[in-house]
């Protein structure tokens, strides 16, 4: 296991160095990503300057909500980014090559995916979390400080598990591009906003069937010391992110194992 971890880290560093090869282009892309995300944030800021708050969430609280999502997404792309391109490896037959190497195929795929967008995510996420907790007056206790990485870990497991599950669908269908688009990218837009703005049916869906709300909405209640009057469930739900993360990831991993065991190459 320790040997596997060492190989995994070596491969991650190699992929980071490959992306850093062209520095000017790297910086320009970073800048473009900032503009892109600023536009996204701009939508929320304009709404808030015009109307004051969204479902009782002020600018600082919305920033914290957004920061938690973007930061955990940044960590997710470091570890699970390449899974979104998994379809390509199945179609080309490249995946077969990984099966004969003496390292778990999953670890080999996971180690190849460093993206520049990751840096932008971490940067924007940190800024939003910092500004958000300052502006909404979060009192950082030792417990909150210790719990933040745990929550981010849980959020990463939710998003990583989602990507793993969607990638595993390829073992049956070969293609999954549209599914990636819908379940990984578009669905995320739902949690830019506090989910209490949605119909209760949708809140239920985002909590139980497709638990994106645990990435940022529920844990934010704890950090921002919100009363929880807008919660559909018992306030205890704000502590459940790590458990939900573990469950989602375990389910996705089971699906992945099941897929691999019945995988037949598309041939090449």
């Amino acid at each position, binding site marked *: 296991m320790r040997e596997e971890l060492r190989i995994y880290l070596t491969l991650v560093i190699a992929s980071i160095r490959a992306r850093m090869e062209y520095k000017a*282009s790297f910086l*320009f*892309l970073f*800048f*473009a*990503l900032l*503009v*892109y*995300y*600023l*536009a*996204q944030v*701009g*939508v929320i800021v*304009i*709404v808030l*300057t*015009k*109307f*004051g*708050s*969204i*479902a*009782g969430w002020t600018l600082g609280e919305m920033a914290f909500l957004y920061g938690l999502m973007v930061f955990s997404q940044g960590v997710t792309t470091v570890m699970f980014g390449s899974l979104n391109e998994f379809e390509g490896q199945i179609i080309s037959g490249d995946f077969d090559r990984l099966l004969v190497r003496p390292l778990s195929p999953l670890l080999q795929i996971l180690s190849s995916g460093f993206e520049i967008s990751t840096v932008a995510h971490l940067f924007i996420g940190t800024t939003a979390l910092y500004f958000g907790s300052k502006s909404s007056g979060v009192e950082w206790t030792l417990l909150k400080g210790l719990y933040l990485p745990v929550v981010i870990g849980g959020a990463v497991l939710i998003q990583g598990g989602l990507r793993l599950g969607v990638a595993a669908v390829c073992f049956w269908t070969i293609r999954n*591009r*549209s*599914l990636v*688009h*819908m379940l990984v990218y*578009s*669905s995320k*837009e*739902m949690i*830019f*906003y506090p989910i*209490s*703005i*949605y*119909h209760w049916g*949708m809140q239920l869906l985002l909590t139980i069937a497709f638990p994106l709300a645990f990435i940022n909405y529920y844990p934010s209640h704890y950090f921002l010391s919100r009363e929880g009057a807008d919660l559909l469930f018992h306030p205890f739900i704000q502590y459940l992110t790590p458990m939900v993360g573990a469950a989602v990831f375990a389910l996705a991993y089971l699906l992945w194992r099941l897929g691999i065991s019945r995988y037949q190459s598309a041939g090449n």
Partner: protein
Amino acid sequence: MIENVGAIKNGVMARSKGAEEKLFDALERFPALSLYIKFAFKAFQRQLAYKFEYFVGVVNGLIFIFIFTSLWKNIFSNSQATESVGFTTSGIVSYAVFAMIIRISMSQDDLGVMGKIRTGAIAMDMIKPFNFFGVTLAENVGGTMFHWFTRAAPILAVCLIFFDVSLPRHPVNYLLLAVTWILGYLIYFMVNWLFAMLAFWVIETFSFQLMKYGMFTLFSGGIIPLDFFPDFIRPAVAYIPFMYILYVPTASFIGHISPAEALGFIAFQGVWVATLGLASVVVWRAAQKKLIIQGG
């Protein structure tokens, strides 16, 4: 069962092919235009090939409509400041729905031209006896017609049933929509064209695409109507082309702006079409001189 579906599909294909040929025969009488209409038709057919993509496109559109109608309903039911913003609750909900439908109706294949430039395949288009700008526009119009029938229309139907919106009654609104949509679409197409032309000069065009997409999201009116921008930004937004793409058609159609105001906006749209059209031609000429194909 599966064979049945195949047979039915083949039957439909055969019939539509007959109709297509008849149309092309009729078009032979107008040689100058017929070429471009054929390209539009082919692009329409190509779109038919991707069924699952299509389904996801529709669901994506509905997700966005759901998010923003929920957002506005929540804000407008809680906020005291809503009387001064010029929208009623049902007004802003129909804005969100129709802005998204109009956005979905506009087909966006801006990577096509860019890819052709990068791979050098554009050389083949340049030696053919037609205007590449015209052909690209025709292909995009074909894709757009497809989007109107297969994405915008079903999404509209779902929204009319579930989202508590209604279509305007007055024919003037539809006339204004037709004019502002066509002008807005031309602006949209030419902005994309100009960004695609960047590929002649720089290799890393993805960054420019990202910035364009960001500005489009924020300033086109697809999500936030111009009215909600802070006073110090609003005049600046009126001087970039994006708001003429979605805000003007949507606001005219739902009657948020009066027909007289809409006419003023149409004049501005006309100015933008002329300006961007001129820029497109100039840049295309310069690009042809600049072009060096790297091998073949």
